[in-house]
């Protein structure tokens, strides 16, 4: 059986950084991704990141992605694309299928899961109509494939993904007719929200979509006001003429491989639901399995990168690749960055949620 020190599953920001960090420490790393191109969600993120300079603030996700790929190449990291990880056995065997045709099992001394997250859906009558799609799907269409999914858009959800994708749809030449948000207040970072507002897009807080109409494709949507108990208020309905409805209702960690392998779960509503328990070093309840990025709790690309570095570093260290002092200082540096990213109005909530996961019993 083929053997590698570390197999990293998923080549988004978390997986790329994990592979780079572990390879820099000297470990023999194999990075696999089911897509034909590496980068995960990073190449869709054409907006500038913010935070502090060491977190690549002011740099666009696409440019960060390019730098990470260069680095991975310099380090000669083995990358298998079009490779789906289908299961983990005996805690250290990864079953993969390459090019939808070759099945093989790799013995991995350590496994790092960086499988990301999936978009949540919102159901309403008409939600299966063509033209109703995830906000991430629309983002993929415009920024990766350079095709507009529609011209007149309704965005459901005002969180970061909702406002960022709204702005990117405007940049791509679509009209965003409205952003509806069921909660009484807006959910995204002020900077992103303000840009969409300045473009003249109306925001409806305390509103939701009642139904979508159309025969072969969305032709309109009915919006309704919600009362304090989130129940539609009769008589407040109005219709908007749209051909596309984007749903940005949050993400759920892609935990199938982790739970299939037997990693213990912890519920973290703030971070997207059930996540594998993990400690500060990103190790799960199974000592040979580490996690990083959205799969460990949905945050953002910058935290995913730092978590990836932490997982890569710690997995390499556990195999004897780093001296204790080097490990300690690098560990502290990454942890420092993570704490900085998890501060402020939005960050503190995520920090508390992360700490609650770590404090939960390992089981």
């Amino acid at each position, binding site marked *: 059986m083929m053997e590698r020190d570390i197999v990293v599953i998923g080549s988004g920001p978390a997986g790329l950084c994990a592979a780079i960090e572990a390879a820099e420490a000297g470990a023999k790393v194999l990075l696999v991704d089911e897509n*034909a191109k590496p980068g995960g969600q990073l190449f869709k993120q054409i907006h500038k990141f913010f935070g502090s300079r060491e977190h690549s603030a002011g740099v*666009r996700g696409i440019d960060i992605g390019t730098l990470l790929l260069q680095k991975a190449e310099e380090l000669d990291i083995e990358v298998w694309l079009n490779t789906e990880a289908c299961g983990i056995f005996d805690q250290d065997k990864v079953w993969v299928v390459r090019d939808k045709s070759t099945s093989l099992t790799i013995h991995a001394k350590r496994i790092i899961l960086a499988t990301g997250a999936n978009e949540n859906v919102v159901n309403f009558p008409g939600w299966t*109509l*063509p033209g109703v799609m*995830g906000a991430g799907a629309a983002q993929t269409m415009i920024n990766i494939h*350079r*095709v507009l999914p529609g011209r007149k858009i309704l965005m459901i959800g005002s969180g970061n993904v909702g406002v960022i994708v709204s702005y990117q749809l405007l*940049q791509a030449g679509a009209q965003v007719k409205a952003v509806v948000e069921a909660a009484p207040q807006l959910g995204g970072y002020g900077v992103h929200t303000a840009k969409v507002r300045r473009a003249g897009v109306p925001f409806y807080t305390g509103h939701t979509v009642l139904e979508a109409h159309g025969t072969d494709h969305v032709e309109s949507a009915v919006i309704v006001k919600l009362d304090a108990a989130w129940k539609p208020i009769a008589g407040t309905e109005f219709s908007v003429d749209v051909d596309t409805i984007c749903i940005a209702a949050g993400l759920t960690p892609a935990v199938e491989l982790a739970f299939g392998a037997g990693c213990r779960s912890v519920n973290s509503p703030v971070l997207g639901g059930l996540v594998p328990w993990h400690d500060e070093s990103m190790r799960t309840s199974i000592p040979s399995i580490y996690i990083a990025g959205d799969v460990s709790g949905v945050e953002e690309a910058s935290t995913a990168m730092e978590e990836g570095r932490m997982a890569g570093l710690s997995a390499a260290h556990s195999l004897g690749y780093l001296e204790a002092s080097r490990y300690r200082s690098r560990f502290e540096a990454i942890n420092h960055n993570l704490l900085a990213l998890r501060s402020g109005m939005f960050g503190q909530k995520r920090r508390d949620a992360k700490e609650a996961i770590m404090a939960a019993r390992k089981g």
Partner: protein
Amino acid sequence: MQRILDHPILGPLPEEEKVTIYVDGEPVEARKGEMIAAALMATGKPYFRKTVKRHEPRSIFCGIGRCTDCVMTVNGTPNVRTCVTAVEEGMVIETQMGFGDWGGKR
């Protein structure tokens, strides 16, 4: 719907070789290497398939290969996820009705 020819951040759409695919019998020009779903969306195709029982139309939903809403019959094989399958010269793509017809290939 429409290709994004010019973009304030990504710049002009790079030149790309063209391939011809056949969609329900009609030739359609696509960009080499792009996903089938992108090529079809650029033509404004309203739906990609109809469901088994109620014959309802469906198109893409997740765009990243997770939900299977976008499946079509490609070169005679039903249930191919068009959002993660690249076009190839001469590819035959059919709007899929229900489970699709395997033509005895099952």
